[in-house]
């Protein structure tokens, strides 16, 4: 087979590939990350690049649909490049301390969309700092299903494995740099992630997760050497993965159940993870039943025009004056606005609803205001004009964004409603609601109920935990009793499969409204 050289700009990286390899595949092989929501199916149109060669004039094509047939130069435009998001944000613990000894560990939360890591001083049992970045596997599809499908391709599993390992090593590297330590001083890693993420981390074929009986190859992973998996810490350092429950209830959910204390609650409690693969667990010290709602990454700031994860500069609270739609907002660390994070979107939607900018179906109905203008599709609302932002563009929310957020909130609410119904409980029976996810530093419960994301219960029953999965990973790193508990929870949880539940679609359709089609479910919102 002939080989040709493909060179990518502006990264200035080259690779020799055999004739017929797609440009997307060549890009991934040499570490150029291209947006590809559909994982090479040719349906999403996100991987547009400009190619030119000897016989070809410069033209715009889809990287996943174009084979290499000569030496080729590829220009990756800014909107196609995933490197935009390769920033790593580090937040220091409140009282930052320098590591006292050479005895460090890392707790990891590997999410479908974001990866978080916390450096921990094992002697003093203290967290030092937390770093967060996007999972580079995003090049292979936005959700776990497209990624599982991708592993069936040649070298697919290797590529996905390498992508997550490189994300982890980069994030550990930046933590090491920040604290002026060597990665070899890190002697143990604990990791929470959904079942697919753990399979890919350990290079185990995830195909069975979605086939036939829908049972993963394994739920529980033995303690192993981190280096074997490719994680660059001390060569004898260990890697522990929190066990999974089922194909779509992973170690991240078990970790959340552990850190929230749901497993020892006396009263009926529920844990709602607002993530790409939102897990919901209901139970108390006697039993736990869990299900997964494939909600999508909207509340993690992905897939929205001006969405971002919860890091400095993210707008996380918004107030709108219903008279003239003038607004005030608060950003994380009061930095200049950069985008909107999950809790910001929740606050924004609620404010737009109550001030009459959007109708209950999520369409912009208000007219004649300088903040409302035509967008590429439908209309958009300007949250912060470019003069006020860190970027060169206005920060906006489009009707397409609202539709996306509406679907996401409907997936989560309907899963909660169905799980509760399935267990023969009423929503009002729930005494504690634990909410986790990388939405922001805080969550306005009133707004979240107002848009119908969370059930309408007394507000003091809600507890926002932030990243409960990472918190659980930290616990198991510090205590073997907690590790035993995690193993026990993994065995104790019963899985409820929503995808085979005929009523789910109906619940979901009913929830595609602000707050809900059935207003009797939201009594506190009645006018």
């Amino acid at each position, binding site marked *: 087979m002939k080989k040709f050289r493909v060179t990518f700009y502006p990264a200035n990286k080259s690779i020799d590939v055999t004739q017929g390899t797609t440009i997307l595949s060549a890009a991934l092989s040499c570490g150029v990350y291209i947006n590809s929501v559909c994982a090479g199916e040719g349906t999403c149109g996100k991987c547009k690049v400009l190619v030119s060669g000897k016989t070809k004039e410069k033209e715009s094509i889809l990287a996943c649909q174009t084979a290499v047939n000569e030496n080729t130069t590829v220009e990756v435009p800014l909107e196609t490049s995933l490197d935009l998001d390769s920033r790593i944000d580090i937040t220091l613990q409140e009282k930052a301390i320098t590591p006292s000894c050479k005895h460090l560990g890392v707790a990891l939360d590997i999410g479908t969309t974001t990866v978080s890591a916390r450096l921990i001083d094992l002697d003093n049992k203290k967290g030092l700092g937390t770093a967060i970045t996007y999972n580079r596997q995003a090049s292979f599809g936005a959700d776990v299903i497209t990624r599982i499908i991708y592993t069936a391709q040649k070298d697919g599993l290797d590529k996905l494995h390498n992508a997550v390992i490189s994300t982890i090593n980069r994030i550990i590297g930046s933590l090491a740099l920040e604290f002026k330590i060597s990665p070899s001083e890190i002697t143990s890693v604990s990791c929470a992630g959904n079942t697919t993420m753990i399979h890919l981390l350990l290079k185990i074929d995830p195909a069975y997760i979605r086939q036939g009986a829908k049972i993963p190859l394994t739920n529980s992973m033995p303690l192993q050497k981190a280096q074997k998996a490719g994680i660059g810490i001390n060569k004898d350092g260990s890697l522990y993965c929190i066990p999974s429950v089922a194909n779509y209830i992973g170690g991240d959910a078990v970790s959340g159940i552990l850190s929230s204390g749901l497993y020892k609650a006396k009263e009926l409690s529920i844990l709602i993870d607002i993530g790409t693969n939102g897990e919901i667990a209901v139970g108390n010290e006697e039993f736990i039943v869990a299900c997964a709602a494939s909600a999508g990454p909207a509340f993690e700031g992905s897939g929205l025009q001006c969405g971002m994860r919860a890091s400095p500069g993210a707008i996380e609270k918004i107030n709108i004056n219903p008279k003239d739609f003038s607004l005030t907002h608060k950003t994380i660390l009061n930095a200049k606005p950069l985008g909107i994070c999950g809790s910001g979107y929740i606050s924004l939607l609620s404010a737009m609803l109550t001030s009459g900018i959007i*109708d*209950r*179906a999520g*369409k912009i109905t208000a007219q004649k205001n300088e903040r409302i203008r035509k967008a590429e599709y439908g209309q958009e609302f300007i949250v912060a004009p470019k003069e006020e932002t860190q970027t060169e563009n206005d920060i906006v929310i489009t009707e397409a964004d609202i539709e996306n957020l509406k679907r996401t909130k409907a997936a989560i609410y309907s899963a909660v409603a169905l799980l509760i119904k399935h267990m023969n409980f009423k929503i009002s029976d729930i005494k504690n609601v634990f909410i986790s996810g990388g939405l922001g530093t805080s969550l306005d419960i009133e707004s979240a109920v107002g848009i119908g994301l969370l059930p309408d219960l007394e507000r003091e029953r809600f507890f926002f935990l932030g990243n409960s999965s990472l918190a659980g990973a930290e616990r198991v790193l510090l205590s073997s009793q907690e590790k035993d508990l995690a193993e026990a929870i993994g065995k104790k949880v019963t899985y409820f499969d929503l995808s085979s539940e005929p009523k789910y679609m*109906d619940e979901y359709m009913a929830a*595609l*409204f602000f707050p809900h*089609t059935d*207003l009797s479910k939201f009594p506190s919102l009645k006018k």
Partner: protein
Amino acid sequence: MAIQILQEKWQGQVSLVTIGATKEEGGSRSSVIKIGGEKSLPALFKEGEIPHKPKVALEIWDIHPSEWPEALSKAYKDTLDDPFLWAKKCIKEYNAECICLRLQGAHPDFGDKSVEDEVSFIKEFLRKVNLPLIILGSGDDTKDNILLPACSEAAKGERCLIGSVTQDNYKDTVTSVIRNGHSLIAESPIDVNIAKQLNMLISDMGLSLERIVINPTIGALGYGLEYAYSIMERARLAALSSDKTVASPFVCFIGQEAWKAKEAKAKDTNQGVMWETITATALIQAGADLLVMRHPLAAEKVNKYIDKLFDTE
């Protein structure tokens, strides 16, 4: 021992919608029709009051319906080119109680008649035909957005039933319907939740729920009739359990669906008439309040069926 027949007691009631306004009411119609108002499931007269029979409206187009199969169009002979003659035939020969006027000619693919032309046509039609009127748009969202408000304006005070609006396209028509005193057809794609959501969106704009008629979208016999039936039944059960947001009467476009069936198009048989009749009678039992039909013979059969059904003596 006599068998005790179990009877359901319902809390809710379907809202009552009047189509047409007489001189005393500020319009120029010779009569009005009332639909809805039932407090029971269809034909279960002992469980609750059913004050009004389902009504049949005959469908008329503003242009020649060249797509109609011969078995259907021959019933109207030479009148199809002239909507006024066509209407006259419906009234004189077929005893129509209500006319459904479809402005198909405004559709970009069917002649693209201008809004001004349609408005003057509506005005003339209202002058010449004095039955209660249903006005339907062309089916093209962009066009109907201008057309329906203009027609609603032209028919001010006549209390017409105007439609259809959908979830993605309702605002302009709703505003105009409120202002000009008409009622509205809200169309949802065989989905109870969307029907409910649309009713809420419309009533949020200020049109009272008593002026909305639901078009649940139906399928003809053999083409999804059961599906439509179960959706209508579900919505009606919710309405009778006092969910006001779905407690609107149903309008079903029987003719439009039945004559799409390939069986209905068969030549030289009565199959089309039967197809339309059976689709209509089945949906009456699902709760249909207003049936828009095409073939006069089918309409006659359905009217007879309704009379028999309501003859409870």
